Protein backbone atom coordinates (compact mmCIF):
# COMPACT_ATOMS: atom_id res chain seq x y z
CA UNK A 1 0.00 0.00 0.00
CA UNK A 2 1.15 3.46 -0.83
CA UNK A 3 2.22 5.75 1.99
CA UNK A 4 -0.07 8.74 2.37
CA UNK A 5 0.96 10.49 5.55
CA UNK A 6 4.24 9.88 7.35
CA UNK A 7 4.69 11.23 10.83
CA UNK A 8 8.30 10.88 11.92
CA UNK A 9 9.73 11.45 15.34
CA UNK A 10 7.16 14.07 16.31
CA UNK A 11 7.56 16.00 19.55
CA UNK A 12 5.00 18.61 20.55
CA UNK A 13 4.94 20.75 23.69
CA UNK A 14 2.55 23.20 25.23
CA UNK A 15 4.33 26.05 26.97
CA UNK A 16 2.18 27.68 29.63
CA UNK A 17 2.57 29.84 32.72
CA UNK A 18 2.44 26.72 34.85
CA UNK A 19 5.19 24.92 32.98
CA UNK A 20 5.88 22.86 29.88
CA UNK A 21 3.46 20.11 28.99
CA UNK A 22 4.97 17.41 26.80
CA UNK A 23 1.96 16.29 24.85
CA UNK A 24 3.57 14.25 22.07
CA UNK A 25 6.88 12.51 22.70
CA UNK A 26 8.35 10.85 19.68
CA UNK A 27 5.53 9.55 17.51
CA UNK A 28 6.24 7.58 14.37
CA UNK A 29 3.15 6.73 12.39
CA UNK A 30 2.39 6.06 8.76
CA UNK A 31 -1.05 6.05 7.23
CA UNK A 32 -1.46 4.34 3.89
CA UNK A 33 -3.80 5.19 1.09
CA UNK A 34 -7.25 3.78 1.74
CA UNK A 35 -6.36 2.58 5.23
CA UNK A 36 -8.65 3.12 8.16
CA UNK A 37 -6.63 3.46 11.32
CA UNK A 38 -7.79 3.86 14.84
CA UNK A 39 -5.86 6.00 17.29
CA UNK A 40 -6.88 5.03 20.78
CA UNK A 41 -5.88 6.30 24.18
CA UNK A 42 -7.30 7.94 27.24
CA UNK A 43 -7.80 11.62 27.89
CA UNK A 44 -4.41 13.30 28.00
CA UNK A 45 -2.60 10.71 25.90
CA UNK A 46 -1.93 13.25 23.17
CA UNK A 47 -4.24 12.03 20.40
CA UNK A 48 -5.92 15.34 19.70
CA UNK A 49 -2.59 17.15 19.84
CA UNK A 50 -1.27 14.76 17.24
CA UNK A 51 -4.24 15.39 14.97
CA UNK A 52 -4.01 19.15 15.35
CA UNK A 53 -0.31 19.06 14.52
CA UNK A 54 -1.00 17.41 11.19
CA UNK A 55 -3.18 20.28 10.10
CA UNK A 56 -1.21 23.05 11.76
CA UNK A 57 -4.05 23.79 14.12
CA UNK A 58 -2.13 23.88 17.39
CA UNK A 59 -2.88 26.90 19.58
CA UNK A 60 -0.57 29.61 18.31
CA UNK A 61 1.10 30.83 21.46
CA UNK A 62 1.24 27.71 23.54
CA UNK A 63 1.70 24.88 21.05
CA UNK A 64 5.20 24.20 19.78
CA UNK A 65 6.43 21.46 17.49
CA UNK A 66 9.82 20.77 18.93
CA UNK A 67 10.99 18.11 16.55
CA UNK A 68 9.91 15.86 13.72
CA UNK A 69 8.38 15.92 10.28
CA UNK A 70 4.94 15.23 8.90
CA UNK A 71 5.20 14.27 5.26
CA UNK A 72 2.34 14.33 2.87
CA UNK A 73 3.20 13.60 -0.72
CA UNK A 74 6.85 14.28 0.06
CA UNK A 75 5.99 17.69 1.48
CA UNK A 76 6.86 18.39 5.11
CA UNK A 77 3.73 20.06 6.48
CA UNK A 78 5.57 21.40 9.49
CA UNK A 79 8.03 23.59 7.66
CA UNK A 80 7.30 27.28 7.43
CA UNK A 81 8.10 27.38 3.70
CA UNK A 82 5.26 25.00 3.06
CA UNK A 83 2.69 27.07 4.91
CA UNK A 84 0.89 28.12 1.73
CA UNK A 85 0.78 24.55 0.54
CA UNK A 86 -0.58 23.46 3.94
CA UNK A 87 -3.40 25.98 3.63
CA UNK A 88 -4.41 24.39 0.37
CA UNK A 89 -4.07 20.84 1.65
CA UNK A 90 -6.11 21.58 4.74
CA UNK A 91 -9.74 21.00 3.91
CA UNK A 92 -8.94 19.82 0.43
CA UNK A 93 -6.69 16.82 0.82
CA UNK A 94 -6.75 16.32 4.55
CA UNK A 95 -10.01 17.11 6.34
CA UNK A 96 -11.01 16.94 9.97
CA UNK A 97 -14.19 16.51 11.94
CA UNK A 98 -14.41 17.32 15.62
CA UNK A 99 -16.04 16.00 18.72
CA UNK A 100 -18.54 18.65 19.52
CA UNK A 101 -20.89 19.16 16.61
CA UNK A 102 -22.38 22.20 18.30
CA UNK A 103 -19.24 24.27 18.59
CA UNK A 104 -17.59 23.23 15.34
CA UNK A 105 -20.32 24.84 13.26
CA UNK A 106 -20.79 28.60 13.14
CA UNK A 107 -24.18 29.41 14.64
CA UNK A 108 -24.82 32.50 12.52
CA UNK A 109 -24.53 30.87 9.12
CA UNK A 110 -26.93 28.37 7.60
CA UNK A 111 -25.54 24.92 7.01
CA UNK A 112 -25.86 25.51 3.29
CA UNK A 113 -23.65 28.57 3.54
CA UNK A 114 -21.06 26.72 5.58
CA UNK A 115 -20.76 23.88 3.09
CA UNK A 116 -20.90 26.17 0.08
CA UNK A 117 -18.08 28.21 1.58
CA UNK A 118 -15.82 25.22 1.23
CA UNK A 119 -16.70 24.83 -2.44
CA UNK A 120 -16.13 28.51 -3.10
CA UNK A 121 -12.83 28.58 -1.30
CA UNK A 122 -11.26 25.40 -2.58
CA UNK A 123 -12.88 24.81 -5.91
CA UNK A 124 -13.51 28.40 -6.95
CA UNK A 125 -17.11 27.70 -7.84
CA UNK A 126 -19.70 30.43 -8.28
CA UNK A 127 -22.15 30.95 -5.46
CA UNK A 128 -24.97 29.32 -7.38
CA UNK A 129 -22.93 26.26 -8.30
CA UNK A 130 -21.59 25.99 -4.77
CA UNK A 131 -25.08 25.91 -3.25
CA UNK A 132 -26.18 23.39 -5.81
CA UNK A 133 -23.33 21.10 -4.85
CA UNK A 134 -23.90 21.73 -1.17
CA UNK A 135 -27.45 20.46 -1.56
CA UNK A 136 -26.16 17.32 -3.25
CA UNK A 137 -23.61 16.79 -0.50
CA UNK A 138 -26.31 17.05 2.15
CA UNK A 139 -28.32 14.34 0.44
CA UNK A 140 -25.26 12.11 0.39
CA UNK A 141 -24.89 12.40 4.15
CA UNK A 142 -28.58 11.75 4.67
CA UNK A 143 -29.92 15.25 5.27
CA UNK A 144 -32.82 16.28 3.03
CA UNK A 145 -31.68 19.07 0.72
CA UNK A 146 -34.59 21.34 1.62
CA UNK A 147 -32.95 21.91 4.97
CA UNK A 148 -30.11 23.78 3.35
CA UNK A 149 -31.46 27.06 4.70
CA UNK A 150 -31.59 25.91 8.30
CA UNK A 151 -29.22 26.99 11.06
CA UNK A 152 -27.10 24.59 13.13
CA UNK A 153 -29.20 24.99 16.27
CA UNK A 154 -32.19 23.64 14.40
CA UNK A 155 -30.52 20.27 14.04
CA UNK A 156 -29.96 17.47 16.51
CA UNK A 157 -26.45 16.42 17.52
CA UNK A 158 -26.32 13.53 15.09
CA UNK A 159 -27.44 15.66 12.16
CA UNK A 160 -24.96 18.38 13.00
CA UNK A 161 -22.21 15.83 12.90
CA UNK A 162 -23.42 14.80 9.46
CA UNK A 163 -23.18 18.42 8.37
CA UNK A 164 -19.62 18.47 9.66
CA UNK A 165 -18.88 15.35 7.66
CA UNK A 166 -20.46 16.86 4.54
CA UNK A 167 -18.27 19.94 4.84
CA UNK A 168 -15.21 17.75 5.30
CA UNK A 169 -15.91 15.64 2.24
CA UNK A 170 -16.58 18.44 -0.22
CA UNK A 171 -13.20 18.17 -1.85
CA UNK A 172 -12.99 14.42 -1.68
CA UNK A 173 -9.99 14.41 0.63
CA UNK A 174 -7.38 11.69 0.71
CA UNK A 175 -7.49 11.56 4.49
CA UNK A 176 -10.24 12.25 6.97
CA UNK A 177 -9.21 12.77 10.58
CA UNK A 178 -12.12 12.22 12.94
CA UNK A 179 -11.48 13.33 16.51
CA UNK A 180 -13.96 11.58 18.80
CA UNK A 181 -16.77 12.27 16.34
CA UNK A 182 -19.41 10.29 18.15
CA UNK A 183 -18.50 10.68 21.80
CA UNK A 184 -21.16 13.29 22.41
CA UNK A 185 -23.89 11.29 20.65
CA UNK A 186 -26.40 8.73 21.83
CA UNK A 187 -25.62 5.12 21.02
CA UNK A 188 -28.18 4.63 18.26
CA UNK A 189 -27.26 7.95 16.68
CA UNK A 190 -23.61 7.02 16.98
CA UNK A 191 -24.36 3.86 15.05
CA UNK A 192 -25.98 5.92 12.30
CA UNK A 193 -23.04 8.28 12.01
CA UNK A 194 -20.47 5.48 12.03
CA UNK A 195 -22.42 3.61 9.38
CA UNK A 196 -22.44 6.75 7.29
CA UNK A 197 -18.71 7.12 7.70
CA UNK A 198 -18.17 3.51 6.67
CA UNK A 199 -20.23 3.97 3.54
CA UNK A 200 -18.53 7.19 2.62
CA UNK A 201 -15.11 5.74 3.16
CA UNK A 202 -16.00 2.96 0.76
CA UNK A 203 -17.49 5.30 -1.76
CA UNK A 204 -14.72 7.87 -1.76
CA UNK A 205 -11.89 5.44 -1.13
CA UNK A 206 -10.35 7.72 1.47
CA UNK A 207 -8.11 7.00 4.41
CA UNK A 208 -9.56 7.45 7.83
CA UNK A 209 -7.86 8.23 11.12
CA UNK A 210 -10.41 7.55 13.83
CA UNK A 211 -9.40 9.05 17.15
CA UNK A 212 -11.33 7.73 20.12
CA UNK A 213 -11.03 6.26 23.59
CA UNK A 214 -13.59 3.60 22.67
CA UNK A 215 -11.91 0.39 21.60
CA UNK A 216 -15.19 -1.07 20.38
CA UNK A 217 -15.65 1.68 17.82
CA UNK A 218 -12.17 1.11 16.46
CA UNK A 219 -12.82 -2.61 16.26
CA UNK A 220 -15.91 -1.98 14.18
CA UNK A 221 -14.49 0.65 11.86
CA UNK A 222 -10.76 0.21 11.39
CA UNK A 223 -8.19 -2.18 10.00
CA UNK A 224 -5.27 -1.06 12.07
CA UNK A 225 -4.94 0.50 15.47
CA UNK A 226 -2.30 2.56 17.25
CA UNK A 227 -2.47 2.73 21.03
CA UNK A 228 -1.25 5.96 22.55
CA UNK A 229 -0.01 6.57 26.07
CA UNK A 230 1.63 9.68 27.47
CA UNK A 231 2.36 11.09 24.07
CA UNK A 232 3.81 7.94 22.58
CA UNK A 233 2.53 5.13 20.42
CA UNK A 234 3.11 2.07 22.56
CA UNK A 235 1.48 -0.54 20.36
CA UNK A 236 0.51 -0.71 16.71
CA UNK A 237 -0.87 -3.38 14.49
CA UNK A 238 -3.95 -4.87 12.86
CA UNK A 239 -7.13 -5.06 14.89
CA UNK A 240 -6.86 -8.82 15.16
CA UNK A 241 -3.30 -8.70 16.39
CA UNK A 242 -3.67 -5.92 18.88
CA UNK A 243 -7.05 -6.80 20.33
CA UNK A 244 -6.77 -10.57 20.28
CA UNK A 245 -3.13 -10.71 21.36
CA UNK A 246 -2.27 -7.44 23.00
CA UNK A 247 1.46 -7.33 23.67
CA UNK A 248 1.92 -4.17 25.68
CA UNK A 249 0.94 -4.30 29.37
CA UNK A 250 -1.09 -1.11 28.97
CA UNK A 251 -3.13 -2.48 26.10
CA UNK A 252 -3.77 -5.63 28.06
CA UNK A 253 -4.70 -3.68 31.14
CA UNK A 254 -7.05 -1.51 29.15
CA UNK A 255 -8.85 -4.43 27.55
CA UNK A 256 -9.18 -6.20 30.89
CA UNK A 257 -10.57 -3.16 32.60
CA UNK A 258 -13.36 -2.36 30.19
CA UNK A 259 -16.80 -3.87 30.57
CA UNK A 260 -17.73 -5.34 27.22
CA UNK A 261 -21.17 -6.24 26.05
CA UNK A 262 -20.07 -9.46 24.49
CA UNK A 263 -17.66 -10.66 27.13
CA UNK A 264 -18.30 -12.87 30.08
CA UNK A 265 -16.47 -10.95 32.74
CA UNK A 266 -16.02 -11.57 36.38
CA UNK A 267 -14.58 -8.72 38.37
CA UNK A 268 -13.08 -5.97 36.24
CA UNK A 269 -9.36 -5.53 36.56
CA UNK A 270 -8.63 -1.81 36.65
CA UNK A 271 -5.16 -0.50 35.98
CA UNK A 272 -3.88 0.93 39.24
CA UNK A 273 -2.72 4.52 39.35
CA UNK A 274 -2.99 7.23 36.72
CA UNK A 275 -1.33 8.42 33.57
CA UNK A 276 1.60 10.67 34.53
CA UNK A 277 1.10 14.38 34.09
CA UNK A 278 2.62 15.58 30.82
CA UNK A 279 4.46 18.16 32.88
CA UNK A 280 6.29 15.60 34.95
CA UNK A 281 7.07 12.60 32.83
CA UNK A 282 9.11 9.85 34.43
CA UNK A 283 12.62 9.04 33.30
CA UNK A 284 12.09 5.58 31.87
CA UNK A 285 8.98 4.02 30.40
CA UNK A 286 5.98 6.21 31.09
CA UNK A 287 3.82 3.24 32.00
CA UNK A 288 6.37 1.62 34.34
CA UNK A 289 4.97 3.07 37.60
CA UNK A 290 1.66 1.32 36.90
CA UNK A 291 2.97 -1.79 35.20
CA UNK A 292 2.71 -5.14 36.96
CA UNK A 293 5.62 -6.45 34.89
CA UNK A 294 8.03 -3.56 35.23
CA UNK A 295 11.64 -4.29 35.97
CA UNK A 296 14.62 -2.08 36.76
CA UNK A 297 15.41 -1.24 33.18
CA UNK A 298 11.85 0.02 32.68
CA UNK A 299 12.39 2.77 35.19
CA UNK A 300 15.60 3.95 33.63
CA UNK A 301 15.34 3.52 29.92
CA UNK A 302 12.56 4.32 27.50
CA UNK A 303 11.61 1.32 25.37
CA UNK A 304 11.48 1.47 21.57
CA UNK A 305 9.00 -0.14 19.21
CA UNK A 306 9.85 -3.80 18.63
CA UNK A 307 8.54 -5.89 15.79
CA UNK A 308 6.41 -8.78 16.97
CA UNK A 309 5.66 -10.21 13.61
CA UNK A 310 3.61 -9.24 10.61
CA UNK A 311 1.99 -5.90 11.32
CA UNK A 312 2.36 -5.86 15.07
CA UNK A 313 4.73 -3.71 17.10
CA UNK A 314 4.96 -2.76 20.73
CA UNK A 315 7.32 -0.69 22.85
CA UNK A 316 8.16 -2.66 25.95
CA UNK A 317 11.32 -4.04 27.51
CA UNK A 318 9.60 -7.17 28.73
CA UNK A 319 7.56 -8.34 25.80
CA UNK A 320 8.66 -11.92 26.18
CA UNK A 321 7.62 -12.29 29.83
CA UNK A 322 4.40 -10.38 29.32
CA UNK A 323 3.35 -12.58 26.44
CA UNK A 324 4.21 -15.82 28.19
CA UNK A 325 1.77 -15.03 30.97
CA UNK A 326 -1.24 -14.91 28.63
CA UNK A 327 -4.07 -12.46 28.67
CA UNK A 328 -4.85 -11.00 32.12
Amino acid at each position, binding site marked *: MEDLLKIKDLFVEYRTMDGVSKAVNGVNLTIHRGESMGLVG*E*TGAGKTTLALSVLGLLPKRAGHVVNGTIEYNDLDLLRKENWAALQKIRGEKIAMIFQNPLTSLNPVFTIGEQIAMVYIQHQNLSKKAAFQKAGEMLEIVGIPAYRIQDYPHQF*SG*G*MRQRVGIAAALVCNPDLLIADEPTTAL*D*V*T*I*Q*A*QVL*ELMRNLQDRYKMSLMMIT*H*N*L*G*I*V*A*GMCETVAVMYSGKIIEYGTIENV*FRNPAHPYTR*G*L*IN*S*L*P*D*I*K*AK*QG*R*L*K*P*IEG*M*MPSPMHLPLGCEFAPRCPWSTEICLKQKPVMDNLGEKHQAACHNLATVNLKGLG
Partner: protein
Amino acid sequence: MANLLLEVKNLRKYFEVKGRGTLHAVDDISFSIEKGETVGLVGESGCGKTTVGNLLVGLLQATSGEIQYSGRNILELDKRERKELCRKMQIVFQDPYSSLNPQKTIHDILSEPLLVQKIAKGAALEKKIQEVCSQTNLSLELLSKYPHELDGGKRQMVGITRALTLDPELIVCDEPVSALDVSIQAQIINLLMDLQRSMGLTYLFISHDLSVVKHISRRIIVMYLGRIMEVSETDEFFENPLHPYSKALLSAVPSILKGKNIERIILEGDVPSPIDPAPGCRFCNRCWMVLDKCRKEEPPLRRFRNLNHSVACHRVDFA
Protein backbone atom coordinates in the same frame (compact mmCIF):
# COMPACT_ATOMS: atom_id res chain seq x y z
CA MET B 1 -43.39 -9.72 48.72
CA ALA B 2 -41.58 -9.00 51.94
CA ASN B 3 -38.44 -8.43 50.03
CA LEU B 4 -39.75 -5.52 48.03
CA LEU B 5 -37.96 -2.31 48.87
CA LEU B 6 -39.27 0.04 46.23
CA GLU B 7 -42.43 -0.10 44.16
CA VAL B 8 -43.19 2.55 41.59
CA LYS B 9 -46.78 2.68 40.31
CA ASN B 10 -48.00 4.71 37.37
CA LEU B 11 -45.46 7.43 37.93
CA ARG B 12 -45.81 10.50 35.77
CA LYS B 13 -43.83 13.70 35.52
CA TYR B 14 -44.94 16.36 33.08
CA PHE B 15 -43.36 19.76 32.52
CA GLU B 16 -45.22 22.70 31.06
CA VAL B 17 -43.13 24.29 28.35
CA LYS B 18 -44.21 27.86 27.67
CA GLY B 19 -45.71 28.21 24.26
CA ARG B 20 -44.94 24.66 23.16
CA GLY B 21 -47.05 22.28 25.22
CA THR B 22 -46.56 19.60 27.84
CA LEU B 23 -43.33 17.69 28.02
CA HIS B 24 -43.96 14.08 29.02
CA ALA B 25 -40.67 13.33 30.72
CA VAL B 26 -41.90 10.26 32.58
CA ASP B 27 -45.19 8.84 31.38
CA ASP B 28 -46.94 6.19 33.47
CA ILE B 29 -44.15 3.90 34.46
CA SER B 30 -44.31 1.10 36.99
CA PHE B 31 -41.52 -1.10 38.26
CA SER B 32 -40.18 -2.56 41.50
CA ILE B 33 -36.82 -3.19 43.13
CA GLU B 34 -36.11 -5.92 45.65
CA LYS B 35 -33.85 -5.52 48.61
CA GLY B 36 -30.21 -6.12 47.74
CA GLU B 37 -30.54 -6.15 43.99
CA THR B 38 -29.15 -3.84 41.33
CA VAL B 39 -31.61 -2.75 38.69
CA GLY B 40 -30.21 -1.06 35.64
CA LEU B 41 -32.25 1.70 34.05
CA VAL B 42 -31.09 2.32 30.50
CA GLY B 43 -32.05 4.56 27.66
CA GLU B 44 -30.71 7.36 25.55
CA SER B 45 -31.00 11.10 26.12
CA GLY B 46 -34.52 12.27 26.67
CA CYS B 47 -35.87 8.90 27.75
CA GLY B 48 -36.59 10.10 31.27
CA LYS B 49 -34.23 7.92 33.25
CA THR B 50 -32.54 10.78 35.09
CA THR B 51 -35.98 12.23 35.83
CA VAL B 52 -36.97 8.94 37.44
CA GLY B 53 -33.88 9.10 39.65
CA ASN B 54 -34.65 12.68 40.64
CA LEU B 55 -38.24 11.80 41.45
CA LEU B 56 -37.14 8.98 43.74
CA VAL B 57 -34.81 11.12 45.83
CA GLY B 58 -37.16 14.05 46.01
CA LEU B 59 -35.42 16.54 43.74
CA LEU B 60 -38.58 16.72 41.64
CA GLN B 61 -42.24 16.54 42.53
CA ALA B 62 -44.20 13.88 40.69
CA THR B 63 -47.20 14.91 38.65
CA SER B 64 -49.08 11.77 39.60
CA GLY B 65 -48.55 8.19 40.64
CA GLU B 66 -47.13 6.42 43.68
CA ILE B 67 -43.68 5.61 44.93
CA GLN B 68 -43.93 2.98 47.64
CA TYR B 69 -40.86 2.68 49.82
CA SER B 70 -41.05 -0.19 52.32
CA GLY B 71 -44.80 -0.09 51.91
CA ARG B 72 -45.35 3.66 52.35
CA ASN B 73 -46.16 6.07 49.59
CA ILE B 74 -43.38 8.63 49.86
CA LEU B 75 -45.23 11.15 47.76
CA GLU B 76 -47.69 11.60 50.60
CA LEU B 77 -45.21 12.19 53.38
CA ASP B 78 -45.09 15.46 55.22
CA LYS B 79 -41.94 17.58 55.36
CA ARG B 80 -40.53 16.01 58.49
CA GLU B 81 -41.13 12.45 57.34
CA ARG B 82 -39.68 13.23 53.95
CA LYS B 83 -36.55 14.59 55.59
CA GLU B 84 -36.22 11.39 57.58
CA LEU B 85 -36.58 9.37 54.42
CA CYS B 86 -33.42 11.02 53.10
CA ARG B 87 -31.54 8.64 55.35
CA LYS B 88 -32.86 5.67 53.45
CA MET B 89 -32.48 6.81 49.86
CA GLN B 90 -29.42 8.56 48.54
CA ILE B 91 -27.95 9.44 45.17
CA VAL B 92 -24.58 9.51 43.45
CA PHE B 93 -24.41 12.12 40.74
CA GLN B 94 -22.87 11.93 37.32
CA ASP B 95 -20.55 14.91 37.30
CA PRO B 96 -17.74 14.62 39.82
CA TYR B 97 -16.84 18.23 39.14
CA SER B 98 -20.06 20.02 39.91
CA SER B 99 -21.33 17.63 42.57
CA LEU B 100 -18.80 18.80 45.16
CA ASN B 101 -18.83 22.36 46.50
CA PRO B 102 -15.48 23.84 45.40
CA GLN B 103 -15.31 26.05 48.48
CA LYS B 104 -15.54 23.22 50.97
CA THR B 105 -12.98 20.71 52.14
CA ILE B 106 -13.72 17.01 51.69
CA HIS B 107 -14.20 16.79 55.45
CA ASP B 108 -16.91 19.45 55.37
CA ILE B 109 -18.58 17.85 52.37
CA LEU B 110 -18.79 14.53 54.20
CA SER B 111 -19.95 16.16 57.44
CA GLU B 112 -22.85 17.98 55.89
CA PRO B 113 -25.35 15.10 55.70
CA LEU B 114 -24.66 14.23 59.34
CA LEU B 115 -25.10 17.83 60.45
CA VAL B 116 -28.23 18.44 58.40
CA GLN B 117 -29.84 15.28 59.76
CA LYS B 118 -28.53 16.08 63.24
CA ILE B 119 -27.11 12.60 63.57
CA ALA B 120 -23.74 13.42 65.01
CA LYS B 121 -21.55 16.28 66.14
CA GLY B 122 -17.99 16.72 67.31
CA ALA B 123 -16.17 13.52 68.17
CA ALA B 124 -19.04 11.29 67.10
CA LEU B 125 -19.04 13.02 63.73
CA GLU B 126 -15.33 12.47 63.24
CA LYS B 127 -15.73 8.83 64.09
CA LYS B 128 -18.54 8.37 61.61
CA ILE B 129 -16.54 10.06 58.87
CA GLN B 130 -13.57 7.82 59.48
CA GLU B 131 -15.83 4.81 59.46
CA VAL B 132 -17.43 5.64 56.15
CA CYS B 133 -14.07 6.51 54.57
CA SER B 134 -12.70 3.14 55.51
CA GLN B 135 -15.66 1.50 53.82
CA THR B 136 -14.80 3.12 50.52
CA ASN B 137 -11.06 3.09 51.08
CA LEU B 138 -10.92 6.85 50.85
CA SER B 139 -7.61 7.97 52.30
CA LEU B 140 -8.02 10.12 55.42
CA GLU B 141 -5.31 12.42 54.09
CA LEU B 142 -7.77 13.68 51.53
CA LEU B 143 -10.13 15.05 54.16
CA SER B 144 -8.33 18.36 54.42
CA LYS B 145 -8.15 18.86 50.67
CA TYR B 146 -10.43 20.79 48.35
CA PRO B 147 -12.22 19.19 45.41
CA HIS B 148 -10.06 20.87 42.79
CA GLU B 149 -7.03 19.13 44.26
CA LEU B 150 -8.48 15.72 43.49
CA ASP B 151 -8.86 13.97 40.15
CA GLY B 152 -12.19 12.84 38.72
CA GLY B 153 -11.99 9.33 40.09
CA LYS B 154 -11.23 10.45 43.64
CA ARG B 155 -14.00 13.02 43.49
CA GLN B 156 -16.47 10.38 42.50
CA MET B 157 -15.27 8.29 45.42
CA VAL B 158 -16.02 11.25 47.66
CA GLY B 159 -19.48 11.43 46.11
CA ILE B 160 -20.05 7.76 46.85
CA THR B 161 -18.69 8.15 50.38
CA ARG B 162 -21.03 11.06 50.95
CA ALA B 163 -23.96 8.97 49.80
CA LEU B 164 -23.02 6.35 52.41
CA THR B 165 -22.77 8.68 55.41
CA LEU B 166 -26.44 8.37 56.23
CA ASP B 167 -26.40 4.55 56.03
CA PRO B 168 -28.94 4.39 53.23
CA GLU B 169 -30.67 1.28 52.00
CA LEU B 170 -31.19 2.35 48.40
CA ILE B 171 -28.74 4.34 46.32
CA VAL B 172 -29.68 5.85 42.99
CA CYS B 173 -26.54 5.90 40.84
CA ASP B 174 -27.13 8.44 38.11
CA GLU B 175 -24.54 7.75 35.42
CA PRO B 176 -21.80 7.49 38.05
CA VAL B 177 -19.02 6.53 35.64
CA SER B 178 -20.00 8.29 32.44
CA ALA B 179 -17.88 11.35 33.12
CA LEU B 180 -14.83 9.38 34.16
CA ASP B 181 -11.83 8.22 32.20
CA VAL B 182 -12.02 4.63 31.01
CA SER B 183 -9.31 3.36 33.29
CA ILE B 184 -10.99 4.87 36.34
CA GLN B 185 -14.43 3.52 35.44
CA ALA B 186 -13.37 0.02 36.37
CA GLN B 187 -12.22 1.14 39.83
CA ILE B 188 -15.50 2.86 40.58
CA ILE B 189 -17.59 -0.01 39.22
CA ASN B 190 -15.68 -2.46 41.38
CA LEU B 191 -16.10 -0.20 44.39
CA LEU B 192 -19.86 0.00 43.89
CA MET B 193 -20.12 -3.76 43.56
CA ASP B 194 -17.97 -4.37 46.63
CA LEU B 195 -20.04 -1.98 48.70
CA GLN B 196 -23.20 -3.70 47.66
CA ARG B 197 -21.87 -7.03 48.79
CA SER B 198 -20.47 -5.82 52.08
CA MET B 199 -23.31 -3.51 53.05
CA GLY B 200 -26.33 -5.15 51.47
CA LEU B 201 -27.15 -2.07 49.44
CA THR B 202 -29.79 -1.83 46.77
CA TYR B 203 -28.99 0.12 43.61
CA LEU B 204 -30.95 1.73 40.86
CA PHE B 205 -28.18 2.07 38.29
CA ILE B 206 -29.02 4.67 35.66
CA SER B 207 -26.84 4.65 32.57
CA HIS B 208 -26.79 4.93 28.82
CA ASP B 209 -23.82 2.56 28.66
CA LEU B 210 -25.13 -0.96 28.16
CA SER B 211 -21.73 -2.57 28.69
CA VAL B 212 -21.50 -1.18 32.21
CA VAL B 213 -25.13 -2.00 33.00
CA LYS B 214 -24.66 -5.58 31.85
CA HIS B 215 -21.77 -5.94 34.21
CA ILE B 216 -23.37 -4.56 37.33
CA SER B 217 -27.13 -5.18 37.11
CA ARG B 218 -29.25 -8.20 37.82
CA ARG B 219 -32.27 -6.79 36.07
CA ILE B 220 -32.56 -4.23 33.36
CA ILE B 221 -35.29 -1.72 32.45
CA VAL B 222 -35.23 -0.08 29.04
CA MET B 223 -36.86 3.32 28.73
CA TYR B 224 -37.72 5.29 25.62
CA LEU B 225 -39.38 8.70 25.56
CA GLY B 226 -40.71 8.40 29.08
CA ARG B 227 -42.12 4.89 28.79
CA ILE B 228 -40.79 1.47 29.69
CA MET B 229 -40.21 -0.67 26.64
CA GLU B 230 -38.79 -3.80 28.22
CA VAL B 231 -37.96 -5.25 31.63
CA SER B 232 -35.93 -8.38 32.04
CA GLU B 233 -33.23 -10.18 33.90
CA THR B 234 -29.90 -9.09 32.52
CA ASP B 235 -28.61 -12.33 31.06
CA GLU B 236 -31.96 -13.10 29.47
CA PHE B 237 -32.09 -9.58 28.02
CA PHE B 238 -28.74 -9.80 26.30
CA GLU B 239 -29.47 -13.23 24.95
CA ASN B 240 -33.00 -12.60 23.84
CA PRO B 241 -34.00 -8.94 23.52
CA LEU B 242 -37.64 -8.74 22.50
CA HIS B 243 -38.40 -5.11 21.80
CA PRO B 244 -37.19 -3.74 18.45
CA TYR B 245 -35.66 -0.77 20.25
CA SER B 246 -33.73 -3.10 22.54
CA LYS B 247 -32.45 -4.97 19.53
CA ALA B 248 -31.35 -1.77 17.87
CA LEU B 249 -29.69 -0.63 21.06
CA LEU B 250 -27.74 -3.84 21.46
CA SER B 251 -26.76 -3.80 17.84
CA ALA B 252 -25.43 -0.27 18.17
CA VAL B 253 -23.16 -0.86 21.14
CA PRO B 254 -19.54 -1.12 20.00
CA SER B 255 -17.56 -4.09 21.20
CA ILE B 256 -14.10 -5.33 20.48
CA LEU B 257 -15.50 -8.82 20.31
CA LYS B 258 -17.92 -8.05 17.54
CA GLY B 259 -16.65 -8.83 14.08
CA LYS B 260 -16.70 -6.26 11.34
CA ASN B 261 -19.22 -7.75 8.98
CA ILE B 262 -22.03 -8.31 11.38
CA GLU B 263 -25.68 -7.52 10.84
CA ARG B 264 -26.28 -4.07 12.06
CA ILE B 265 -29.63 -2.56 12.85
CA ILE B 266 -29.41 1.09 12.02
CA LEU B 267 -32.38 3.17 13.06
CA GLU B 268 -33.66 5.89 10.80
CA GLY B 269 -34.17 9.39 12.03
CA ASP B 270 -33.89 11.02 15.41
CA VAL B 271 -35.71 10.60 18.69
CA PRO B 272 -38.97 12.55 18.39
CA SER B 273 -39.84 15.33 20.79
CA PRO B 274 -41.30 14.34 24.17
CA ILE B 275 -43.61 17.35 23.98
CA ASP B 276 -47.24 16.33 23.46
CA PRO B 277 -46.30 12.92 22.07
CA ALA B 278 -48.48 11.35 19.41
CA PRO B 279 -50.81 8.50 20.36
CA GLY B 280 -49.65 4.97 19.83
CA CYS B 281 -46.29 3.39 20.49
CA ARG B 282 -43.55 5.92 21.21
CA PHE B 283 -41.14 4.03 19.01
CA CYS B 284 -43.34 3.71 15.95
CA ASN B 285 -41.71 6.39 13.80
CA ARG B 286 -38.33 4.64 13.89
CA CYS B 287 -39.44 1.04 14.05
CA TRP B 288 -38.86 -1.22 11.07
CA MET B 289 -41.64 -3.57 12.12
CA VAL B 290 -44.30 -0.93 12.54
CA LEU B 291 -47.93 -1.72 11.79
CA ASP B 292 -50.95 0.53 11.63
CA LYS B 293 -52.01 -0.75 15.03
CA CYS B 294 -48.77 0.54 16.53
CA ARG B 295 -49.53 4.09 15.48
CA LYS B 296 -52.99 4.07 17.03
CA GLU B 297 -52.74 2.00 20.15
CA GLU B 298 -50.05 2.21 22.77
CA PRO B 299 -48.87 -1.35 23.58
CA PRO B 300 -49.09 -2.29 27.27
CA LEU B 301 -46.21 -3.83 29.18
CA ARG B 302 -46.96 -7.55 29.17
CA ARG B 303 -45.22 -10.52 30.60
CA PHE B 304 -43.55 -12.76 28.05
CA ARG B 305 -44.40 -16.42 28.48
CA ASN B 306 -43.75 -17.25 32.09
CA LEU B 307 -40.44 -15.57 32.47
CA ASN B 308 -39.38 -12.59 34.47
CA HIS B 309 -39.39 -10.71 31.19
CA SER B 310 -41.93 -8.09 30.13
CA VAL B 311 -42.15 -6.08 26.94
CA ALA B 312 -44.43 -3.43 25.47
CA CYS B 313 -44.78 -4.26 21.81
CA HIS B 314 -47.60 -5.30 19.51
CA ARG B 315 -45.28 -7.35 17.32
CA VAL B 316 -44.12 -9.72 20.04
CA ASP B 317 -45.74 -13.13 20.12
CA PHE B 318 -46.67 -13.59 23.75
CA ALA B 319 -47.90 -17.13 23.34
